[in-house]
């Protein structure tokens, strides 16, 4: 059992939990994720590690309440326990000195971007961060990410904060005026697709972190398989980070809709 030691409500439906999980905290690296199960009847869901503290033995997760399990997770409080919390899983982010890197985070994808921004900055890069969300209420970790960024931009679809429009607009402006060595993009699949097709025109190396449906998270089922440059790869062990220019985003979107009806049914029955 894994106790919840801290809880923060970041926005209406985005919550942060700090979990006591010393073995995971000791090994966690930016870009990796965990699989958790709330209770005996629960499903296994993957969540990216947003932060970890090896000394205190804690791991931070940030999640958007989208379905039954994340909504149930959002009702838990300090002192409650998770039944299972396995990790760290996946390959760590490819952190090294690239030169100038642009980190693009969309919606709840900002959370997993945070440890990567931090690590890229510590590796000596010139870090430019662009955070985007539908409205300003859905932005996360602004101050934390800004602290590790040399340049910092915000975009909102409705213009409630920063640039009105999409992260790709700001990225285009940056590309127009300076040389970029690498782009790291995490967010909704459609955002990663748009960012990748933009950077491909300029031949800028682009990494994305994919979020397919997972079950075990250890490479034994292939539920999370994605098509990378025409080859089948398992996001849980080969990823979740891949070359953004090689990903078949349409197939990923299709496969992520596999259980939409079941999810709706589960929410309805649970009254959430």
């Amino acid at each position: 059992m894994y106790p919840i030691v801290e809880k923060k409500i970041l926005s209406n439906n985005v919550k942060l939990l700090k979990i006591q999980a010393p073995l995971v905290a000791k090994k966690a690296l930016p870009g990796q994720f965990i699989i958790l199960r709330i209770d005996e009847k629960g499903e296994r869901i993957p969540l990216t590690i947003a932060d970890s503290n090896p000394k205190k033995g804690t791991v931070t997760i940030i999640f958007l309440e989208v379905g039954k399990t994340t909504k149930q997770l959002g009702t838990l409080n300090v002192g409650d326990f998770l039944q299972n919390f396995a990790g760290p899983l996946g390959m760590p982010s490819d952190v090294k000195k690239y030169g100038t890197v642009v980190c693009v985070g969309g919606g709840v994808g900002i959370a997993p971007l945070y440890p990567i921004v931090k690590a890229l900055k510590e590796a000596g890069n010139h870090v430019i961060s662009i955070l985007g969300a539908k409205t300003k209420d859905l932005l996360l970790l602004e101050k934390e990410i800004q602290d590790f960024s040399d340049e910092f931009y915000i975009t909102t679809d409705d213009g409630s904060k920063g640039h009105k429009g999409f992260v790709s607009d700001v990225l285009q402006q940056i590309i127009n005026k300076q040389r970029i060595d690498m782009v790291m993009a995490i967010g909704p699949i459609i955002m990663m697709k748009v960012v990748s097709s933009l950077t491909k025109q300029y031949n800028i190396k682009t990494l994305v972190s994919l979020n397919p449906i997972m079950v075990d998270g250890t490479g034994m089922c292939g539920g999370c398989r994605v098509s990378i440059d025409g080859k089948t790869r398992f996001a849980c062990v080969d990823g979740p980070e891949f070359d953004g220019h090689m990903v078949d985003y349409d197939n990923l979107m299709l496969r992520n809709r596999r259980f939409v009806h079941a999810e709706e049914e589960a929410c309805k029955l649970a009254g959430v």
Partner: protein
Amino acid sequence: MSVRKTKHEMPEQEPKERIKNFKEVPYGYSKEIAVEEAKRCLQCKNKPCMKGCPVEIDIPGFINCIAEGDFEKAAEVIKAKNNLPAISGRVCPYESQCEGECTLKKIGEPVGIGRLERFIADYEREKGKKPPQKPASTGKKVAVVGAGPAGLTCAGDLARMGHAVTVFEALHDPGGVLMYGIPEFRLPKAIVKSEVGYVKSLGVDIHYDVVVGKTITVLELMEEFDAVFIGTGAGLPNWLKIPGENLDGVYSANEFLTRVNMMKAYRFPEYDTPVKIGKIVVTFGAGNVAMDCARTALRLGAEKSYILYRRTEAEMPARTEEIEHAKQEGVIFKLLTAPIRFIGDEKGILKEVEYLKMTLGEPDESGRRRPVPIPGSEEKLAIDTALVAIGQSPNPLIPQTMKNLKIGKHGNIITDDEGRTSIPGVFAGGDIATGAATVILAMGAGKRAARAIDADLKNR
């Protein structure tokens, strides 16, 4: 005195009824029938049946106890060698092992050794199992990676030798394939948990959610433990490698069975994990896993459940009993067919499979006749769900994270007969060493490794 030529039947659920539930198919022997079946045993002096048993059970010994009505003694005889008899008594391929060597085969059917093992295990479980007396501690610590049949057997045997054993399991339940792979109707999960409970009662400690290679490495385990046994199995699904395999509707057998068995998706929405199947389900492959998939699909409400296999029934690797059960339940076998592509609709959802008809040619290196495509024989079948059950490869997680470990060309860990790897103090056994095989072979490998580990620790 004449000996009955056939095994006593084991009563089972009617096919029409059982495809509506996940309850176990056979009910098992009653006491009376078990005694009668035990009396068929000729008590051969040379015990040929034992040569076929990978875990070395004294088969005539325990059967003699049953014939005399001493079921507790029978349990002791089995438990002296096998900590998980309720499992092996259900899933062993007896026909090619102990029963395959039985002298009675010369005049008819062999003794129902598997059924008798199962009877004793169930009898004992209902009565409440008592663990044997704990031996004196040796002060040595052994780490076992993976709580599948190999790991549990190795752990149980080591504990009985007096070593302190800790098992590290990546998933949230013990049993490995016994829990996620083999369906409830063949091996009830309550029985798996009970058998694991017995292993724990021997003093074995099991830690869940520990993915060795990620959460902790084997090298780190070696700092804390005197020896490490790797029993991480063959959990990497093989694919058909044909176009359309990533369409919505195509599952690996592992994903499908894990959702249904371990996550209990057949009880959705009481349990949170969903599974989606359509009206027409096609399973590719003809091993035990394929039979499990095809039979599970029927229980989830599929109107038609097909098995597509590129050879004929004679070459099917599944146990005879599983093939028979699948037929009785209405699984349709389309033999001598090989899929060439999956076809989706405009949204990318699976709607058809195209396949070629085959004919059998000369035997290949496996000794089975090689399937040869018939040119121009393409046909299509409308389907909703495809389950790919064409085998698994050794799980690469640990081999990838250990540079000095010698690995075979199929990704298996190379060991000697007793499970020693290329690294002193590190042992391996079961599917990770042999490639996908059977539960009982994994248990046998765990047993031999436990003996070798014990010998090595005593010599240090």
